[in-house]
């Protein structure tokens, strides 16, 4: 238990380990998930999605930093590359999502997702 807590990076004497990064990423992920599920505003949901993506980026970077960068150079820059891809993807996603939201607003006069349920059976 002690080692686990230590690995969280709370003890200044011990260098920050992988678990600390994963913890931050998990917290971010759950926050994003809750935002997606709890918010009625479509913008809020979009922000939640961004949080989830960021959690994933942190995971990529952490796993790369702590095991993916082999000495033979086979894993060189894999983590940062994925990170950059995901940032790019998030940007695209945000653009598309905002366009959809604008369209929703034009058509329904609102972006409250609960009041838009035309797909109901």
């Amino acid at each position, binding site marked *: 238990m002690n080692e686990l807590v230590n690995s969280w990076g709370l003890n200044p004497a011990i260098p920050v380990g992988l678990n600390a990064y994963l913890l931050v990423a998990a917290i971010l992920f759950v926050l994003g998930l809750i935002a*997606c*599920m709890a918010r*009625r505003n479509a913008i809020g*949901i979009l922000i939640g999605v961004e949080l989830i993506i960021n959690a994933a980026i942190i995971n990529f970077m952490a796993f790369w930093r702590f095991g993916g960068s082999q000495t033979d150079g086979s894993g060189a820059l894999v983590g940062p590359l994925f990170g950059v891809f995901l940032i790019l993807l998030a940007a695209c996603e945000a653009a598309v999502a905002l366009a959809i939201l604008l369209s929703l607003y034009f058509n329904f006069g609102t972006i409250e*997702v609960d009041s*838009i*349920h035309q*797909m*109901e*059976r």
Partner: protein
Amino acid sequence: MNDQLVLNLACVIFLLPLACFALMAVFHERIPRHGDWLATTALGVTLACAIAIFVHAAMTGRNLLVNVTFDWLPLGMTNMLKGGILVDRLTAVMLVVVTLVSFLVHLFSVGYMAGDVRYGRYYCGLLLFTTSMLGLVLANNLIYLYIFWELVGLSSYLLIGHWFEKKSASDAAIKAFITTRLGDVGMFIGLMICYWKVGSLQYADLFAAVQNGVLSGQGFAGYDWQTLAGLGIFFGAMGKSAQFPLHVWLPDAMEGPTPVSALIHAATMVAAGVYLTGRLLPFFSPPTLIFIAYIGGITAIFAATIALVQDDIKKVLAYSTVSQLGYMIMALGVGGYVSGLFHLTTHAMFKACLFLGSGAVIHAMHHEQSMSQYGGLRHKMPWTATFYIMATLALCGVPPFAGFWSKDLILGDTLAFTMQHGHWFLVVAGFGTAFLTAFYMTRQVFLTFFGAPRNEHKFEHAHEVAWQMLLPLVILGTLSLVGGLGGWFEKYNPKLDGITQIKAIAEAGYQSPLVATAVAAAHQVAAAAHEGAEGAGEHNPVVAQAHHTAMVLSIVLAFAGIGLGVLMYRERKNGKALLNPDALARAFRPVYVLLWNKYFFDEIYNAVFVETTHIAARVCAVFDRLVIDSVVNFAGLMGKVGAFVVDMLDRLVVDGLMVNGSARAAGFMGNELSYAQTGRVRQYLLLMVLGILALSGVVLVLIK
């Protein structure tokens, strides 16, 4: 002129009418006048070629001019049916006869058939017939002869049925075709025996086979193969030449246009049987020859008696033709090769003239054929009457007309045969027929051309015919006068290889039965007669004696017949004849009825063959209905039951359970699950997370 040229001419003779036929068959609608000028011109050229060959044969002094054989049809690996062209003197005569009569008939038809509905088709038929007949004559083997034999039968069928709208015409065409086909079955059997035993159908090979005794093995019923094959082939000749039991088609064939009757059913096609018998004479064994002679004799006298009482002008001529064909066959049967074929030639001339003359009369009388409507026509049609009477005299056998010479030869040959070997029936038939022929032809001439007109209305409209119709009459009438002068045929056709062959066989002691020796001896007689043609028959005094007697008797009988005819049918000033034919008919009523109904042959055939066929058909129909139908119906019922079972299986199991069942299950599931579709995005997400958590829990538990 050499033999190569003869061969070329022979090819032209065959191919020119054929090409013309092919052309006309396709284009006769578009050629001006439906191509009658084309056909007639082609036949004119063919006639010129035939005359050239005829004259050449006379000048060279040889009998055989061309005998070309070529491979025609391979049978299996080793056998080969051969084709070939034969031109000898007999062929040369036949070529002239066929092309001459055909050419004149073409010319005559221009007038007679003018305005006919199927004018072009008629000429196509004539050309096809001429082509086939020429091919038949030029063949040097039986298979070619058989092919063209059937083709002349076909064209005869087409031309008899030319006016097929008339029921009687189409019936007559069918009757002619089927009756001759009956004989052809026998002919084909004969051909098969020949090919089986000899391996070739060339005339020369067959004669050699006879000489070598290849065919002398025992066949059926105590006859050797030569006899059986000969009988079979002669059955074909009986059908085509309308001999006794198969004669019934020829009188009915008069339903065709009259020029066709002249060409096919009097002068050429019906003579094909005689030609075949003459051509193969050395092939026939002695029993066959006796059979041939009797058939010919029976036919001759039997048809002559029917001709006595007929009223239709063409029917009289038809029965006369049957009778004269019987004459020729009888002559061949007693070994009179020259006399039979000589009579064929002269008969073609005067019988064609008679038929064309009757055609002219019928044309002038607006297609009235009954002689009871004629009378006095010589005033209206002097030219027709003149040439008709000339041809009649030829048929009656009055010297010096053509028929006298040939008929005299036939009677002489028959008498010589009988004096040496018995068979008196043949002589009685021969001389009796000569008398009857003279009588009924006189009757016909008097009824038609003399006396008072019996139908004034039609008589008023009668007129002499146009030149196209008169010219053939003139030519044929003249030939009837000069066509037999001096017995030219005998000098033209003196050497018959077959007869000398038969002599050799007889000397070699071929077969022992009594008939064999008798007939072989008869052949010697005939051969002696041929040799004696130049030397006045010193070789055999009996033959010379017979010919003298026959000549005197035949002249006496001809004049007796004519005299009786004049007595009975020449009307005196009071309008009555010296002897009243009606009273005679009443006196001999049963005989008259028998003859008037042609010995009831049609009725007998109808009762025996047609009715038998009907009864057999009815029996078959009942069998069909009772047995075959019930089997069929049972099979149908089984099929129905099986189909019902399969149908239920299909509907319940396949359709119900599998196809529709799965579809219904999918539909039900989809329907139920569709309630989860709320359209609320957040709810989906919630469900997804819960699902993942549940799955994760399961995985954790399982891994533990």
